């Protein structure tokens, strides 16, 4: 029987959740035995090459590329998991949600004291993804099946959830596994 296939993505995140996934110590050897990675920054596969069993999403949606990426994950993954505060509720990027996008861009690219006078331009190349009006939690864009809170979720929580999902058994959560920070 072929191994369960995993895919991961970091949308509007800091890669902290991916770091936490790699923070499972020697269990990482078991992970290699247990699953096969498809599209993921960990193996640098850029596009889906086969159907995926479990997709892990880090970060919320702050631009059009995040939304396209997330929809591609929904299409190709049987089970989709929001990993971390940003995927679940927007996280720190969502601090901008009360501020109009124009104001954010002007502060970052025009008015900030560290912008060189000759560089005062809001980037508008068509290659650059369009910034959304606010940062959206992933489950407000597509259906998400499971949620792992934490900033980042502890390696133990990610390991427990991942192994439970691929083995098809119920989650066994301890009090200390669920933390929001």
């Amino acid at each position: 029987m072929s191994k369960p296939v995993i895919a991961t993505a970091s949308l509007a995140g800091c890669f902290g959740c991916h770091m936490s996934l790699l923070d499972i110590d020697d269990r990482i050897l078991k992970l290699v035995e247990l699953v096969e990675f498809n599209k993921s920054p960990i193996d640098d596969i850029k596009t889906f090459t086969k159907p995926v069993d479990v997709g892990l999403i880090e970060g919320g949606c702050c631009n059009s590329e995040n939304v396209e990426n997330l929809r591609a994950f929904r299409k190709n993954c049987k089970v989709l998991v929001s990993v971390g505060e940003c995927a679940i509720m927007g996280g720190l990027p969502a601090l901008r949600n009360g501020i109009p996008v124009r104001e954010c861009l002007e502060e970052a690219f025009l008015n900030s004291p560290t912008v060189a006078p000759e560089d005062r331009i809001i980037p508008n190349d068509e290659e650059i993804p369009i910034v959304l009006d606010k940062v959206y939690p992933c489950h407000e864009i597509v259906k998400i099946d499971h949620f792992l809170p934490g900033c980042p979720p502890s390696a133990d929580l990610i390991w427990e959830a991942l192994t439970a999902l691929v083995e098809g058994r119920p989650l066994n959560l301890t009090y200390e596994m669920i933390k929001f920070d």
Partner: protein
Amino acid sequence: MSEITITIDGRACKSPAGRTIFEVARTNGVYIPTLCNYKDLRPVGSCRVCTVRVAGRYMAACTQVAIDGMAVENTAPDLEDMRRSILEMLFVEGNHLCPSCEKSGNCELQALAYRYQIMVPRFPFQFPVRRVEAVAPKLLLEHNRCIQCLRCVRSIQTEDGRRIFVPQNRSRWRKIGVDPRLAAELTDEMALKAMEVCPVGSILRKGVGFAVPIGRRKFDKTPIGTDVAEGLPR
């Protein structure tokens, strides 16, 4: 004083008459979760997290006086789900960014979410626009995190009984204001008490923060309510 007996989930609990269901439960080692209730303060029943069921009716355990023979339901699954939904509403109604909050690990709202294993709120996030207020010399008011429990309003007063925190406006526009003149005279002890009495990270002392490392904070290892009763729901 006469003694009464009530049952909480079938368990007999004795108490002197005149106490609330919450107090009777607590002295008998039964945990009823609460946010707005605080030791020695007159209960107001504003958060409804302590909702229990008696004879099919829902009531706030912190304000309802226990009457002899009452059969109180505390941990029925639908009741616990109702409490969970109240907590989830509080999370989506404000801007609760736990990773960047000074109170994280010591926050009672967060601790209840841990206790109830809330992975994600069932309601859409509101992302309200609220300002941070720094008018008091010793305190920061982070309105994004305020849950309107009124614990600060009720407990922090000057020696001659004047309130330093006051509720302003109504309905969804209600916020807790601070009297700038009285706040300017706050002692360090009072400022610390104000921060401690706040169940969330809405009242913060200026100049200090993140003093206790992760792992040694109040709710890092033990769930809220373990001082009253062992064990988690279900």
